[in-house]
């Protein structure tokens, strides 16, 4: 890990325009929730909050945010041809890989965090329960780590990584993950939701939706973290291998 590398990548990833765009995306559920707090019962608000978190936030906004940021970590270096500067520095290759993974995770966590904190505040004030956003935050941590592990090497390997990543989300996460039982365990947002479902209380409506999405994946924080942990180790090893053995520029 290297502080200068991480700092530089974070500066680059969190450009103001992109930050605003992504913050609007992850903040959308909070905005919606704000209007739903008027005139609804606490139980209903809790239900809306959880449904928004599960459907809009975890299934759409977080994957997209993570995709944009994590694939850009190496992707922008590659496409802007600045990767040359980075790989001709006296750093062990695994330091570069780990720094990128860290930066991508931090960036995703920070941007996703904007939306989550906003929603958390709105919900906590409306319901009077300060712990209400805890499960979503745990889900965010799992999602940031998991998606970074997938998209960071993708950005290094593929030139149109955002599009490829989008295809990954649609095909792997949405279609195959929903229809093939064996695969759903390895779907990142299901892993995030399995952690979500294991923390704090979940309303009945949300519980149904959650089980619908999860299929046969059993909720569990420990399992979720174990899974992303393995994913991260694999990702780190693979990224390091690419940095050591493969061409780092096009023709």
């Amino acid at each position, binding site marked *: 890990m290297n502080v200068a590398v991480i700092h530089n990548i974070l500066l680059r990833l969190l450009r103001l325009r992109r930050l605003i765009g992504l913050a609007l995306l992850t903040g959308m559920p909070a905005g919606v929730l704000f*209007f739903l707090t008027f005139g609804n019962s606490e139980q209903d608000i809790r239900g809306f909050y959880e*449904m928004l978190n599960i459907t809009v936030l975890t299934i759409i906004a977080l994957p997209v945010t993570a995709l944009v940021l994590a694939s850009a970590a190496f992707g922008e270096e590659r496409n802007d041809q600045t990767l040359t500067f980075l790989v001709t520095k006296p750093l062990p290759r695994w330091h570069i890989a780990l720094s990128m993974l860290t930066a991508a995770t931090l960036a995703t966590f920070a941007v996703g965090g904007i939306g989550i904190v906003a929603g958390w505040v709105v919900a906590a004030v409306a319901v009077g329960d300060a712990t209400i956003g805890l499960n979503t935050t745990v889900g965010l941590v799992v999602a940031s780590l998991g998606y970074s592990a997938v998209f960071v090497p993708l950005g290094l390997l593929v030139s149109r990584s955002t599009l490829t990543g989008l295809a990954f989300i649609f095909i792997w996460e949405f279609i195959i993950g929903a229809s093939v039982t064996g695969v759903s365990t390895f779907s990142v947002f299901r892993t995030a939701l399995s952690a979500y479902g294991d923390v704090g209380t979940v309303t009945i409506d949300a519980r149904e939706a959650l089980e619908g999405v999860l299929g046969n994946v059993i909720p569990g924080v420990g399992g979720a973290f174990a899974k992303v942990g393995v994913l991260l180790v694999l990702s780190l090893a693979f990224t390091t291998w690419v940095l050591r053995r493969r061409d780092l520029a096009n023709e």
Partner: protein
Amino acid sequence: MVDGSDAVIVDRGYRHYEGERTGSRGAVAAVVREGYRRVLGLRRKARRKVLPWFLISLALITVAIFIGIHWVASSAPIGRGEAPELLPRYGEYFDLISVIALLFTALAAAELFVPDRVQGVLNVYFSRPLNTDRYLLGKLIALASLILSFYLVPQLIFHIGLAAVDDSGFLTYMSENLDVWWKVPATALVYFAVHASVAVVIAAFLPRVGAAAGLFLGGMLILNLLAGFFIEGTNLWFGRYFGLIALEQHPRYVRDWIFDIDTIEHLPERAGFDPWTSLGVSIIVFIGAVLVTRWQYRRIA
């Protein structure tokens, strides 16, 4: 010129052009023609033709299937003439075609607007007798004619097909269904106004074709999703106005109104708006899109 004993060596070098110049109008026409070629992938690598022609053939195949259903229904010995209202007609066909057209619009708008800007070709355009407004006019004509054709050509085939398989005979069917001639184009226009506006505004700002198309499709989806939450959950007096952000739903609502269909409750309807409002929103979105796009291009030109 050449007889047996003479030889002629012709070196024309650079020829000056003495003919008429078509001026700015010719330049706009060239932009339109080039727009067609770009969207349809003509005179480009085969890879570029796949998506547009896949969508076009999808539209035509579904027409054929619809006509087939009608033909089977009308020629079946049992149940002839029964429950004709269950058979899909013009309005229902819009349901199907509008989903394909949504993809086609995403592709067409992105292809028309993104590459010119990103590849720097605008520098060439604007060094010719062409200014921002005329350039955008050319693009708008290209987009409108492509997308409206995408809606209307299959519908025309559908209309002729329905007349051909109808029991009452071709001409009788035609004369009994004259209202189709304004209902279908009017509906297509509303679909175009909303879909194309949003797609063009996005394409005018994003630097990549894929990203522009993706954001357009994803944006339409998310707006519907959010509007649903608002309509269901909010108790505020202005909460229902959020029902209007489901842009994708407005043309559908207007269509049902024009064709007098009442099977699904669209989001604006659930929020308590009448079709006139949806029509109004569609027009406002269109005008807004024209203004924003024009502003953006004046800024970068």
